[in-house]
């Protein structure tokens, strides 16, 4: 039925901590055990979460978590003790494009840690706390109404559960229905599925889709949270569909300042790349975005990020896609790209910046930038597809040499990239 987690040995992890407020923590310093046996009320590692979805970091070590079941964005202000620097970790051999596995069998290990079987583990997102390079995962144990959320961090290859009930927290509710002026006291069956959250200049930008109306909505929320929230609907020209679309959801977005002006760049299913000036995203408005690239039909984007290339020091946009190679586009082109003409005939693309996109060999379920030279990804190696691994991949080519069967990898083969001169040059930067 299910693939069981597998093990041949033991481990002693620094994961089971005495909570300061736990009965043990209280009983031990006094040297007297609690005779009543009354346990503390709750273990609370999930804290206020009802589900664990999209993750993103903001300034001051704040970790934002999208909670679809709770229809809430949570902000956890991580304390110094919640973060452990990982900058001493070796990411691989950068010159030779040889990454390293941080965790082999990530899903197997999460199942063991959460006391379950591998089929019950769902990894919803991956985020990196840039100053410490610590990796955070949003995980759920279970796939139904009994699913238990957890935020898990990686500490030198070991998995540790964040005890969320002890971390300073604030939250804001997301209306599940943008026009909820008319609601009876019935069970609101409508769910607003949060597809992405990004933090920019003291504000969160939250995109999503509802299960009933299929309407594309963008919320703009100041942080620290107050009652303020601006909600707008967005519209794009979609050349593959030859139509203005108001309903297709933004699946991923990033915010970048270009020429002193902040923009939100969004990707949709099937796969338009759209530019919105932030100044246009005001409460109650309906905004038409500029379609600047059509990345190709029949695909769904998985992740969207920007990185600085260690090769030419230029910034690039990266979009990973479920059915084919990832797309790379120069950030400098994002501002200058002309909006594609609207109202024309059907164009299956690629179009606009899609014509000059570079295909990158990334097959990842989740990807994030770890540090200036390395990305971190959750993926399945073709030879070990029964498990997920957490591995590094060298920027800017996202190429893993040790998986290659090319002639230059043979001992006596040609060596045009001087791999042999750089053997064993392991480093993290």
């Amino acid at each position: 039925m299910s693939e069981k987690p597998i093990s041949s040995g033991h481990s002693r992890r620094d994961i089971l901590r005495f909570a300061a407020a736990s009965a043990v923590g209280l009983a031990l310093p006094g040297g007297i055990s609690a005779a009543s046996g009354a346990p503390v009320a709750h273990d609370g590692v999930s804290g206020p979460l009802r589900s664990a979805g999209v993750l993103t970091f903001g300034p001051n070590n704040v970790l934002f978590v999208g909670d679809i079941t709770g229809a809430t964005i949570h902000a956890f202000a991580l304390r110094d003790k919640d973060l452990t620097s990982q900058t001493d970790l070796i990411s691989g051999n950068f010159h030779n494009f040889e990454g390293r596995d941080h965790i082999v069998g990530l899903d197997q290990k999460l199942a063991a840690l959460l006391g379950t079987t591998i089929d019950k583990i769902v990894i919803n997102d991956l985020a990196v706390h840039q100053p410490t390079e610590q990796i955070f995962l949003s995980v759920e144990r279970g796939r139904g109404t009994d699913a238990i959320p957890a935020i898990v961090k990686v500490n030198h290859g070991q998995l540790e559960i964040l005890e969320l009930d002890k971390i300073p927290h604030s939250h804001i509710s997301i209306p599940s229905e943008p026009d909820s002026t008319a609601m009876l006291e019935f069970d609101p069956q409508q769910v607003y599925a949060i597809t992405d959250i990004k933090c920019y200049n003291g504000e969160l930008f939250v995109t999503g889709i509802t299960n009933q109306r299929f309407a594309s909505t963008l919320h703009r929320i100041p942080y620290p949270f107050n009652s303020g929230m601006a909600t707008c609907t967005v519209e794009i020209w979609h050349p593959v569909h030859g139509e203005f679309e108001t309903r297709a959801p933004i699946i991923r977005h990033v915010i970048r300042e270009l020429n002193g002006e902040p923009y939100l760049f969004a990707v949709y299913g099937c796969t338009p790349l759209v530019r919105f000036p932030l100044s246009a995203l005001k409460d109650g408005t309906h905004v038409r975005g500029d379609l600047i690239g059509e990345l190709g039909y029949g695909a769904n984007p998985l992740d969207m990020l920007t990185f600085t290339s260690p090769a030419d020091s230029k910034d690039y946009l990266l979009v990973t896609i479920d059915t084919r190679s990832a797309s790379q586009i120069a950030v400098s082109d994002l501002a200058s790209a002309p909006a594609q003409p609207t109202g024309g005939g059907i164009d299956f693309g690629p179009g606009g910046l899609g014509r000059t996109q570079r295909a990158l060999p990334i097959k990842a379920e989740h990807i994030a930038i770890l540090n200036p030279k390395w990305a971190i990804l959750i993926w399945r190696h073709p030879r070990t597809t029964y498990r997920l691994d957490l591995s590094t991949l060298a920027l800017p080519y996202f190429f893993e040499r040790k998986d290659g069967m090319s002639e230059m990898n043979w001992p006596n083969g040609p060596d045009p990239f001087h791999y042999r001169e750089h053997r064993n040059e392991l480093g993290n930067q």
Partner: protein
Amino acid sequence: MKSLALPTFISQQLIREEKLGVCQPRLQVSSDRSPHGPSVSVCFLAPDLIAFLTSCARPNELLKSVFRVTVAQVPSPEGDRLPDVSGRYLLLEDELRFIPHFPFERDVKYRATFDPRPLGAPLTAESLNREFFIPSEQEAPALTEVTHIFPSCALLPENLLRFYVCFSNPMQRGQALKAISLLDSDGQPVADALYRPPVELWDRSMRHLTVLLDPGRLKRWVGPNVELGPPLEVGEKYALEIGVGMTDLYGRPLSESFRKHFVVGDPVRERVSVEHWKILPPGTGSRQALVLIFASPLDWALLQQTITIESPDGLVIDGQVVVDQHERRWSFTPTSPWVTGVYQIRVGPGLEDVCGNNTTEAFDRPLRKGPNLVTRINGSSLIFQLI
């Protein structure tokens, strides 16, 4: 944090335990009515061991190597170590208790190991081992089946936007893409007809799943529509098949697959005309239902929440909604009797028919020209008067 309602059960699945007297240390799985459910304990610990542990500066570091709980499993082909189950320890009078951070799952086999040897002489004793599991609830609900698929009508418009699939028990995510398909009259899957959303679209109870037809094929003159045609063809017979591969909350497949058979009729490309609804008013002073009859079927889920009734003094009144007659009838039974005066029937802007047409405009409509993008989707209202 959600906790499972675990049964009050003391595991008797003792596979290997040292034959010790009742006053010797032993591993015991205890049912516990506290929110965190069952735990596993080393009982009958000697007072000097308890005293030693309480005097330790960092007992946690010690305990996690002495008293370990793991998921019992076959060895890894990688020879790689798996973490122990995450949890915390409670030190009681003569007992050391392990409480998992996530409640023990039913039917998962765990191994508890207590090995006091790292504590050193004179506390050395043989290690204790025990495998245990919490069995499934005795009374598992009946096998899960599909109870309804909406729209319930057997004649559906060519530009149908969505189905709602209703299950008799809560379900698990992750199977819809594989298990749900649209079949043609020969029983063959229709390619690219259903939309692949970024997340499966379940309601909170996880009993209702939204399945969308590809909007790109529904809109005329849109690329996929021109290239592939609409997902449904007028006059043809189809079936939406829900395969047994859908998994319920208890990890079980459906009792049987389910097919909703339907025939495709003409498309509906006009707004929902609220002004053409038929109102059957209730009797004054009664708690009879107010009934609205629609010209064509409206969206089953949106009907539950987008229509409200305001009393003569302007307050939204409480009551029960029933939708039936193939989503062409909406009945509202108030909790308090109707009084004389003018009632407002408020129709929220979210209301749509089965094709996604709303009260302001059709889903599939001509392009809007010019810079003014705002087509405000307004709500509407009707009135009725009771005398």
